[in-house]
């Protein structure tokens, strides 16, 4: 599958994790942009209009939930699919994320990188079929 026309924004403050995800996405052929906190993430989303956003929840400054809220309120970027990638795995946080408009909620400690790639592929496939 040719992914070079798809741009993914990774919002993750931990550099170790961010490096691994970015590397994995690049290996799959995606174009990748990175942000290390919520504010920069929002800025990048507005400026670069990615096709999908991987969003961590626990971030320095504003948290992932706030980023999600602001994204859904900002007209131009409200339609970008957001996949939450976090280690806050309890039911309350998952429900909150989905209610705020995330299309999926992945718990880092329970998944392998391959699983993340598969979920992203599924989301893109679904979007194309619509």
């Amino acid at each position, binding site marked *: 599958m040719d992914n070079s026309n798809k741009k993914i924004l990774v919002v993750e403050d*931990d550099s170790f994790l961010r490096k*691994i995800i970015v590397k994995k996405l690049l290996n799959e052929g995606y174009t990748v942009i990175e942000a290390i906190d919520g504010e920069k993430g929002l800025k990048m989303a507005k400026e670069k209009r990615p096709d999908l956003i991987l969003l961590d929840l*626990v971030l320095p400054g504003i948290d992932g939930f706030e980023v999600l809220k602001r994204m859904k309120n900002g007209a131009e970027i409200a339609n970008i699919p957001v996949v939450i990638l976090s*280690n*806050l795995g309890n*039911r309350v946080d998952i429900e909150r994320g989905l209610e705020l408009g995330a299309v999926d909620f992945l718990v*880092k400690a329970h998944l*392998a990188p*391959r699983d993340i790639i598969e979920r992203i592929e599924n989301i893109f496939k679904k979007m194309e079929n619509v």
Partner: protein
Amino acid sequence: MWWFKKKKITNQEQMFVGYWIFDYLDDGILVIDQKNRVFLANFKAAEYLRIKKEDLIGKSILELNKYLNLRDLAVLSQVRIRKEERKEKIKPRDNFFLEAKFIPLKTQEEEVKNILIILYDITREVLTEKAKSEFIRLSTHQLWTPASGIKWSLKMLLNEELGELNNKQKELLKEIYEANEREIKLIGDLLTVAEIESGNVISEVSLLNIEEIIQSAINDCEKMAIKKGVKIIFREPKERIPKVMVDEEKIKMAIRNIIDNAIRYNKSSKGIVEVGLERREKEIRIEISDNGLGIPYEEQRKVFSKFFRGKNILQIDTTGSGLGLYIAKSIIEAHNGRIWFESEENKGTTFYFTLPIKKKFGEFLSSKFY
């Protein structure tokens, strides 16, 4: 002698002193009559409700509830009808929490006319508990961060995405991966234990089909069962099993933990774990039995304690956390169920637990109030 001449304290003086004590007590006190009107109140109660003491007297508690914020005023009639004490947690306003104790005052004929309401300020405990939960929640998150990075990197190495590996390298990497998985699970178990210790065992309850939850738990354990050469059999119940009010995630966790143990305590391959389910009058009973190592008699009383692992199992399987049964027991008891077991060394073990069949929704404990 001087003590013969000591002045006797009169009844009236006793009453005055009693009244002062009542008035200045550090807990709020209200006494309401049969018509639910306040006829006695002390300064603390007035302070808690933010109404002048004089204005409290004669007011109906129903009217005052906008300052008190009792969730369900039916508690008053229940106290009168059942002639029993009741306790309720109340949140009159933001960052202010009270525990209200309702005590029926019985007349000589054992009738309940008046109710004594004692209000205890529990704000400090509630806020401390919240702060502790938040700290634990964030800590486990922080612990999981490097563990996730390790998990992912190892996966990529094991998939040979960064180059081919020889067998020795593969084996070592697999062991590191498994050790990391154990750490991830242990952190999760610690988080669960912390939630249990702070009283938050159950969050959301709903009326559910227990058979489906059992099957789901069995599916989660399938991978490990195959690895250990153990077969899991689910004996279908003979009769229709009514639904139960449970926290789905937590009950599944409890069942999973017991099945997990049954698999680990297996003797060798060809082990069998049988799960059975039956209805008894007011409860359903679930049985999980194995034909494994059994629990040594001297250790049986320690089985449900934290971090306990049988001496006989430690030589075979060093990977369990020792928290599984403590967690399972806490979850089942929070659902008003019972859990127990029978075990014989080298023959096997059977765990039993019950869950009550609740008819009335209202009978069940509701979720956290804040």
